[in-house]
């Protein structure tokens, strides 16, 4: 098989892998622990601050890149893992499902971030 489109998916995976490695741990801390446990009085303040922060285009683009590309990182790995776990016979369906989900996730991130 020659020059498959794997190169394309892999490049999205690699980019998502880098961004995910750099950003996701701190995002988990923020969304999972820091924001929920903040003082309720401060929470309103946080919200306005975050709205302002996410209102900036560079921040929007960065966030979309992190979330969207991380979707592709996960999709790529899940696809390969499923095949490695014995589902090679369904390679096509798995690819469609994984990358399809990643495309939806990436689109959702664009829409959701854009409307903030």
């Amino acid at each position: 098989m020659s020059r498959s489109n794997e190169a394309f998916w892999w490049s999205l995976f690699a980019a998502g892998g880098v961004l995910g490695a750099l950003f996701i741990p701190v995002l988990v801390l923020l969304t999972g622990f820091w924001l929920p446990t903040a003082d309720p009085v401060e929470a309103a303040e946080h919200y306005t601050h975050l709205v302002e922060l996410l209102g900036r285009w560079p921040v929007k683009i960065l966030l979309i890149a992190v979330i969207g590309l991380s979707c592709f990182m996960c999709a790529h790995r899940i696809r390969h893992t499923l095949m490695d776990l014995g589902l090679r016979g369904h390679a096509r369906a798995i690819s469609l499902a994984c990358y399809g989900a990643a495309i939806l996730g990436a689109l959702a991130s664009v829409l959701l971030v854009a409307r903030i």
Partner: protein
Amino acid sequence: MNPPYTPPPAGPAWFLQRKNWLLFMIRELTSAVIALYLVFFLVFLARFGGGAWVFEEFLALLTHPLSMAGHALAFAAAVWHSVSWFNTSAQVMPIRIGTWRMPGVATIIITGYAPWLIISALVFWAALP
């Protein structure tokens, strides 16, 4: 004469055969946890876009121990991903100056751990009011 002997195929639990294969499989499976977190994060964004009230209600839900446990798992998976990703940087993109090759540990710190810490701090700093 019989054909060459071919050992039986390993089966789906092949990764249990060697320690490094198991570590590899754990690394790959972190992506499933991260994927779930990404779904959560999209919900988070949707709620956030829904206005201050909606968002605060949502945050209140997140104080539930189940949420905390889920996030703890997500954090572990994300850190595992980060560590395993950065640790390969010296192999994938070695830094060379002439014939000198930067030692692996230094490469990993410079291209991986240092930016990771700085970015994490920056994100915190930016997110703080």
